[in-house]
């Protein structure tokens, strides 16, 4: 048996790098870093009390469209355009996904944070906008806060 074969059997040459694109995608989602507030156009989308946990409100002024989602009492805004084929992403279902793991294991992840595009089913983390199917996919997210009057304000 050759040295190469031995290394193969030891699992040293499995052909892939140490980190898979999905590991990276979930690392970004797990970090859950909210988008940084910057100076920009502010849009008041109305009373926070009208968007219950697990619910959403879609804003569309003909120029820009985004969805505001209430996840466990915190508000997150995400662009309403899927980077894949331009679908109205925020019309999709909010779900939970499964973290990459061992064969036969189902490890629920990002509970209630996963937006599944209504057209082709691609998954995005609502909090970070990270696509959960490869390393690069991402949709824009916007800083979101509740002002002193109880309204949700999104900064574009």
């Amino acid at each position, binding site marked *: 048996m050759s040295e190469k074969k031995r290394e193969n059997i030891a699992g040293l040459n499995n052909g892939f790098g140490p980190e898979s694109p*999905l590991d990276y995608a979930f690392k970004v989602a797990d970090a859950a870093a909210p988008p940084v507030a910057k100076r920009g156009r502010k849009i008041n989308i109305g009373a926070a009390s009208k968007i219950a946990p697990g619910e959403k409100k879609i804003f569309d002024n003909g120029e820009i469209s985004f969805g505001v989602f209430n996840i466990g009492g915190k508000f997150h805004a995400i662009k309403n355009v899927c980077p894949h084929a331009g679908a109205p992403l925020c019309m999709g279902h909010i779900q939970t996904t499964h973290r990459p793991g061992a*064969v036969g294991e189902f490890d629920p992840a990002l509970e209630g944070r996963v937006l599944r595009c209504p057209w082709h089913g691609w998954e995005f983390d609502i909090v970070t906008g990270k696509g959960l199917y490869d390393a690069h996919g991402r949709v824009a997210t916007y800083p979101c806060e509740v002002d002193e009057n109880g309204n949700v304000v999104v900064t574009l």
Partner: protein
Amino acid sequence: MSENSKHLDLPLIDCDIHPHATSEMPLMPHIAEDFRQAVAQGQASQPGQGYANPFGVQRRDATIDGPQDVIDNLLERYGIVYGVLQPPGLNISLAANIDVGCAVARAWNEWQIEHWLNYDARFLGSICVNMNDPVQAAKEIRRAAQHPQMVQVIVTGESTMLYGHRHYFPIYEACTEMGIAFALHPGNEGARTPSTPIGAPSSYFEWHSTIPLTYMAQLASLVCEGVFEKFPTLKAVFVEAGFGWLPHLMWRMDKNFKALRSTTPWLKHLPSEYILEHVRVTTQPMEEPRKPEHLLQIFDMIEAHRTVCFASDYPHWDFDDPRRVFPPRMEKALKERIFYSNAAELYDLPSLEEFVGTQPVASALVEATK
């Protein structure tokens, strides 16, 4: 090397040669004594798929009574320096009686060793196993793979369950432990259930043309069930069912992965990446598009420099002649990979450089490649 091979400028590895038992090389003496009566009674008989080639499966001009015939008529003639045997025992998992099936599988392995592997080092063996008894099959793999010329396990495309099923995991574990590949060979699609998901084709023509349906299902199963995650060094060889369908399957699976990966969360990479890393296909019966450049485009789509290995299917009716079957405009580097290096890496054989350096017969080949 004979005069006839001089037109070939590269050594070849042939991944699909079909030996069979003859009165000079019978199988029965290799069957354990306890099972000889059962085999004589027909207890190892396998259902046919019902589609005999009406014009015969054997090439009319080819004889293959023994290893010397293959050496004279195939290896020497085409410059084939290694030939992988695909014995009839590859169908043994279709036998109803599990224990008799296991005994016959083992007999085919002993038969190959005695009559072929020990006869000439150019012959490489395929280990026959009964997939319906994975524990026994794994044991047989660990035993038979100790012969240095045994390079893979061979099974038929038709199976009780799709090959990705975890029922078969002990077999893949044994393959990776012994450092050998897991290969599929068609021929009995339709033996258990109709060979298409809808129903039975009406002719050998129709049956033979749709064999890739089975292969697509088996490959999707191996990928989706996580076999290549669980056994990261396993190589699967898809023999004799073409590859024109492979780009489609890869693209379709990659697209679906983006939406559906959370249902198979063990998949960390695109399905196409698992396929390109773990799956090898053989050339015969070669896809022959009307425009030869389309074949080269398919080669490009499936990264043929890593995935495609030459096979002749000698002595069957749809044999491919390596001199004639490739487009004339194929680059030499790709030819080297398909003719030799892909199979050499798959089966842990000397590299092209090592081979050319150690074989006196190959010096002419080196000259020719310059």
